[in-house]
């Protein structure tokens, strides 16, 4: 692949790097695009879910007989309709899942483990009847004490969520069960020795609250299982193939029996990578032999999908007076929710990853509590751990009187750095983003009263994974692309652009679609910032294969050998010969019938070599000392994209990620009452940033190419949510001369700190 990379990076690009209209743009601005809840089928039933009102309770019995008698009720499912599984871990993007837990999260079995945990589901001829049926289901619970915070959950004697949970990763293994699912540790060197060499050591504890991805489209699906057991599933998801595999396992289907079609997806950010309603709708449809549609309402999205962890973290960093970091150490305790699987592994791996350190250690604990099971959220685990580290870095900069960007530059990870999680890093853009930040006019702009500037950097790995896509050359010279990763933010455009660049035909002649699970080999999720990298790689590879075939056909028509033909700007061209001879793609396509039949190619591979993406953000805040209100005055996000295929959508990722991070930093948090009930289950109380809360988000795209992608692409989607948390906290700390160590920086919390220190 390296050769091809060379040619691509050196050749002048015509399409890649420009800003064409996205192929699905018109559908999305006219209301034509069909999202998860937008499809119906004849004879369709409505499915609704009965949810636990208790944070922790034994389920003694469930009596559905009265509900079954209600006219219009066509099917009811409980845990007895789902197979049980032994404990088995399977990787799912940047997370790991366990089928034993997945089946219990989809439908509670022995116990309900959080308010909102699914206990039963009903399909009926109308929503009203379904709701009435829910009220008629008689569940007998034995309410148990619950626990919501990691510091309570890890104490001996805490209520146990799973009485067989023995902490993994501790030698020797503990003898008794606890709520600590696992311990992880990364790092190298000798941190104690490093601290002994330091002139200054800063050590601090931080708290972050549970937050939700906050996608505007609630989960929704439509399942139809026919009498012969063939299933069709339409749903909003980041990964139709992953949904197929989860559902077939949970329900005992084989993969060929379920065809999953991904709807347009109204935001996911990691939250639409697992299953909630889909297996319920399939089970209800199988029982009733009718299509079943299910939608979550907004409150259900908050209580019963997969937000990310709240956490307690401890960070200690030692430096020389010249800014050289001598050691970094941290302990991260993340809420997993009701089942193990907090993103503490990636959190620990990336905590110190922006830096080139000799002595580093990151320890993480995955702790279960009576909250919904966490799912991935944009750079899962990263914003939390890096918030702690980047806050301490800023505090050090102030204490030793050094510019915070200079301090980072002095310690920046670069090509050849051994990352704290093991590997030697390839080319990465930490230094480049820092230098871009330093020379940006924002960094030296004057500040007003009660204003201050914060900076922070962020590192994220990005992933590759199993990917499959195909290309078809149509008889009239147009081109079809079939992709297996749902388009969540303009990826159809990037894919068509790369194919257009390779083929030399205008992008308007290329039609990309998202295929269903029957049309391609397995595709992993749109997630882990992998779509443009992985699907892009397969698109380029399959397009190049199609070009080879086109050249072959031209050689046949010209009756020359293949090595006499080259491909140039949408045409086959005869290399030798007296007269220049060319044949357009359309001319070759028209004659495909007589040169061997239709022309198509596909590429299926396990894509490796994802390039980490680094970002540095600059933020100016103003703190109202009377109310504690923090306003974002100016914001600049700088990130290494490797190569921006469609810069507008790269900027969009950076802007959207920054604003999600602003929400995390300033407002968003799950608020529970003493009964373990979530009190803010709507957008009014769980306040994500609105348009008037934020300024324009300036962006600078830095391009340090990833050598493992034909155009140099890294992922871009996740990194931008990492820096805002610390950048804002650092700015608020600088504005007030107090060190803030808790998120969100909501007015009451800021005011309390201003008043009481």
């Amino acid at each position, binding site marked *: 692949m390296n050769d091809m990379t060379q040619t691509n990076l050196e050749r002048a690009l015509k399409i890649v790097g420009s800003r064409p209209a*996205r192929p699905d743009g018109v559908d999305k601005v006219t209301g034509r695009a069909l999202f998860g809840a937008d499809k119906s089928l004849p004879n369709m039933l409505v499915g609704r879910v009965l949810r636990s009102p208790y944070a922790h309770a034994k389920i003694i019995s469930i009596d559905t007989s009265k509900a079954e008698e209600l006219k219009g009720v066509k099917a009811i499912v409980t845990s007895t309709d789902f197979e049980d599984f032994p404990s088995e871990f399977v990787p799912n993007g940047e997370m790991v899942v366990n089928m034993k837990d997945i089946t219990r999260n989809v439908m509670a079995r022995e116990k309900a483990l959080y308010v909102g945990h699914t206990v039963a589901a009903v399909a009926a001829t109308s929503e009203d009847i379904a709701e009435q049926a829910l009220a008629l289901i008689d569940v007998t619970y034995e309410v148990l004490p619950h626990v919501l915070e990691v510091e309570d959950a890890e104490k001996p004697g805490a209520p146990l969520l799973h009485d067989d949970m023995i902490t993994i990763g501790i030698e020797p293994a503990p003898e008794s069960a606890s709520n600590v699912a696992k311990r992880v540790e990364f790092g190298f060197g000798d941190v104690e020795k490093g601290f002994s060499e330091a002139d200054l050591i800063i050590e601090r504890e931080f708290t972050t609250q549970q937050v939700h*991805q906050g*996608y505007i489209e609630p989960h929704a699906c439509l399942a139809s299982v026919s009498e012969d057991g063939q299933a069709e599933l339409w749903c909003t998801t980041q990964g139709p193939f992953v949904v197929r595999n989860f559902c077939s396992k949970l329900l005992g289907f084989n993969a060929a029996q379920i065809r999953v079609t991904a709807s347009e997806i109204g935001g996911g*950010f990691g939250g639409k990578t697992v299953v909630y309603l889909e297996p319920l709708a399939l089970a209800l449809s199988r029982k009733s032999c009718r299509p079943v549609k299910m939608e979550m309402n907004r409150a259900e999205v908050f209580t019963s999908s997969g937000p990310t962890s709240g956490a307690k973290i401890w960070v200690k960093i030692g430096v020389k007076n010249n800014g050289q970091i001598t050691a970094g150490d941290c302990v991260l305790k993340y809420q997993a929710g009701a089942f193990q699987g907090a993103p503490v592994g990636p959190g620990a791996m990336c905590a110190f990853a922006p830096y080139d350190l000799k002595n580093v250690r990151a320890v993480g604990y995955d702790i279960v509590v009576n909250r919904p099971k966490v799912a991935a959220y944009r750079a899962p685990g990263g914003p939390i751990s890096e918030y702690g580290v980047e806050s301490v870095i800023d505090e050090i900069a102030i204490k030793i009187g050094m510019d915070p960007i200079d301090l980072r530059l002095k310690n920046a990870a670069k090509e050849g750095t051994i990352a704290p999680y093991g590997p030697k890093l390839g080319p990465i853009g930490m230094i480049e983003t820092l230098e871009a930040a330093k020379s940006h006019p924002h960094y030296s702009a004057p500040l007003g009263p009660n204003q201050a500037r914060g900076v922070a950097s962020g590192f994220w790995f990005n992933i590759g994974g199993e990917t499959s896509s195909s290309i078809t050359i149509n008889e009239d010279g147009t081109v079809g692309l079939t992709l297996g990763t749902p388009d969540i933010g303009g990826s159809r455009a990037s894919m068509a652009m790369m194919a257009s660049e390779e083929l030399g035909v205008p992008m308007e002649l290329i039609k990309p679609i998202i295929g269903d699970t029957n049309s391609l080999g397995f595709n992993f999720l749109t997630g882990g910032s992998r779509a443009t990298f992985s699907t892009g790689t397969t698109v380029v590879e399959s397009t190049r294969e199609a070009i080879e075939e086109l050249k072959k056909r031209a050689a046949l028509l010209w009756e020359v050998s293949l090595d006499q033909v080259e491909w140039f700007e949408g045409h086959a061209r005869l290399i030798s010969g007296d007269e220049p001879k060319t044949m357009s793609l359309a001319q070759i396509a028209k004659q495909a019938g007589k040169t061997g039949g239709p022309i198509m190619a596909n590429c299926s591979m396990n894509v490796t070599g994802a390039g980490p993406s680094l970002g540095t953000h600059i933020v100016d805040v103003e703190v109202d000392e009377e109310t504690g209100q923090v306003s974002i005055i100016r914001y600049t996000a700088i990130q290494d994209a490797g190569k921006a295929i469609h810069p507008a959508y790269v900027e969009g990722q950076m*802007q959207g990620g920054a*604003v999600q991070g602003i929400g995390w930093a300033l407002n968003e948090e799950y608020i529970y009452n003493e009964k373990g009930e979530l009190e803010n289950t709507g957008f009014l109380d769980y306040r*994500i*940033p609105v348009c*008037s809360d*934020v300024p324009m988000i300036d962006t600078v795209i830095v391009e340090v190419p990833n050598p493992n992608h034909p155009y140099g692409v890294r992922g871009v989607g996740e990194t931008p949510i990492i820096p805002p948390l610390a950048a804002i906290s650092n700015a608020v700390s600088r504005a007030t001369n107090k060190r803030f160590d808790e998120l969100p920086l909501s007015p009451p919390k800021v005011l309390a700190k201003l008043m009481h220190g």
Partner: protein
Amino acid sequence: MSKTHVATHINGDSYEFLCNTQQTLLDVLRHELDLKGSKEGCATGDCGACSVMMDDRLVCACLVLGVEADGKKIETVEGLSTGSSLDPLQQKFIDLAALQCGICTPGVLVAAKALLEKNKNPSEEEVRFWLAGNLCRCTGYDKIVRAVLEVAAEARNT
């Protein structure tokens, strides 16, 4: 429960439907009339994905009852384009990549059009406050605000 007969105008066409008195206008649009362009993000008036015009007033269709549409003029995202030509806002949103997932887009477009009908020369701040009821979780609002300001500027120059 007997249903109520409602006669209304939607995007210039007359419509009649029967609905339960507790059914929202959003529910009627989406489920009775199959106009799926208006989206439901919350059903409580907090996200603006269901924004429509009712007698030239911007409303959340999830907060209006279907029966209230009787005799009124409703405009939804499906009515923004005329024939094969897009509204300038629609075109500008595509050109400037002012949408990512697109779920908020119908509501944002309806709301932005309502603003530009009232105010030909909105400041950035006016755009931001007008659109404060339309949540977008993907874009960070930057490109949305730019698109609205550019359309306003272009309309003033023609």
